């Protein structure tokens, strides 16, 4: 749960549970709003978290997603148990997708998931072992101007 300078929380995500898909990112968004994080930062984290969450729902068996917030950065770590990614470089290319017809029917599979996560993150790290799973870690930095942007919060002096 963290200490004075950090707050962290872990969430479980289950593969194939489409009904719950998006719940974790919504919950994280709520926490960041309570912390008073700037709206533009929240949007980047929301998009990245949502894509990561849906990747687990679509491809993996299960995963643990951990959110960590310090006054300097927001870190999201997703460790899944699943098929893994054989060629990460290929998966990072926009438009490349292994989505099934069923997933495409739901509006996914445009091959934008991982590139979208990387675009919204300041730091991006992914490692994978075929047959075991994937570990994704992203960081979004907070600083004076974008972490606690004044124009977005009239409560702040």
């Amino acid at each position: 749960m963290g200490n004075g300078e950090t707050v962290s929380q872990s969430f479980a995500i289950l593969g194939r549970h489409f009904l719950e898909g998006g719940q974790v990112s919504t919950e994280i968004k709520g926490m960041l709003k309570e912390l008073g994080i700037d709206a533009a930062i929240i949007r980047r984290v929301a998009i990245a978290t949502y894509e990561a969450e849906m990747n687990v729902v679509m491809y993996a068996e299960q995963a643990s997603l951990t959110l960590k917030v310090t006054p300097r950065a927001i870190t999201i770590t997703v460790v899944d148990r699943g098929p893994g990614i054989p060629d990460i470089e290929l998966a990072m290319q926009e438009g490349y997708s292994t989505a099934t017809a069923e997933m495409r029917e739901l509006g996914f599979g445009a091959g934008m998931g991982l590139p979208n996560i990387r675009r919204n993150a300041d730091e991006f790290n992914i490692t994978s072992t075929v047959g075991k799973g994937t570990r994704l870690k992203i960081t979004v930095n907070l600083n004076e101007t974008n972490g606690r942007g004044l124009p977005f919060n009239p409560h702040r002096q």
Partner: protein
Amino acid sequence: MEEDFRSILIDSEKCTGRMRCVHACPTQAVRVRDGRAKLLRDRCIDCGECVRVCPNHAFLPHTSSFHDLSGFKHTIAFPSPVFYSQFGKDARPATILHALTSVGFDDVCDVASASESVSIAIQEYLDSENRPRPLISPFCPAIVRLIQVRYPNLLDHLIPIESPMEIAARETKKRKMQELGLQEHEIGAIYLTPCPAKMIALKDPPRKQHSYLDGAIPISEIYPSMLQVLRQADRTNGPDIHGLGLGWPILGGQVACLKAEERIAVAGLTDVMRVFDEIENGKLKHIQYVECHSCPTACVGGSLTVENPYIARARVLRLIDQYGSGPGQDRQKIRDLYRSGFYSLAGTIAPSPIQPLDDDISRAIHKMHRRNQIYEGLPKIDCGACGAPTCMTFAADVVKGDAETDECVFLALKTLESKSRALLEVIEKQNRKIHGRFGGRDHDA
């Protein structure tokens, strides 16, 4: 600073602390403290759910009344198109409009035709390039507040087009000023409203623009006198009202006026928030327009209406059948007006996010950590006996200093239990001492 205008007030005398409001509030803005309901203004979006559910009518819509009409030289009623659905299937909109001149107004003006022309303006806006997707309808004031409070990222998705009630009021007032030789403040433009939220739109418009409406009277307040007048009314009076604008008060009424291929209509705050979450997650970009209503049955289900919302909806559908395809608006004329800025709203809408746990990020993180610790010790059943809607909101109230942990009955019981146990231990210890001193002698002997 002057306190913002709010459309809902609490009559503490009437409140008996029954908690219905606390559980019903979709933004967790109500607490019961010292047995009385209290509104957290930073969270309230004026949706009126509390007005609807309170069995004691302790939540008062902050609307206008008939007394306010006396200050004007000429008064004009602008009934929400919901009004046409309130008086049974035989009352024609034209008859209803005419009847309004017998209940205290000098004049009336139909708003449904303005709704239709606003729909054409929306179509023009949708068809232009480089718009954020999807665009969101700005006509439910509670939805606009919800976006200001919870979804500031979506503010630029709100279409900057003036509402039908404002267009109708502005144009009618201008015409009447010329006809009667009066100044704007001498003409009273009064909206007949299905909900308290509309009051916000005219008293404190989100873009801070001038409102041509001077007040809003609840449909429920004017209903009894209307019934009386309608009983004797000449039902053939006045020219018919035509057009698809008549359908605006029901779910799907706005999108039915549009040609956009990908458009959806959403009602009820739970579903609206789900859709907004998806938009924030970067989804729904293929949708062009989202019609949003905070009331689950759209405007016909507003908390200040009288007719059962499902009957009212059926009545609106019948009106569309009867009059929807009649002589509509001059499209080309409206397009030209749109291009001249007739329907456009200038200015931006400022976000109004909920008060964070703390203004300082380090302290906010610390408080969230502390909140989670407190939450772990709570029963997690959201019983509400503490006066907060959930255990999590209670924990947050405690770290913000707005509540004490022992206000949780379960925690209080635990404290009592450990104190009693400690007391029992003292008693037993004393007992043993006494027994040691006096041996095993029977005290009663």
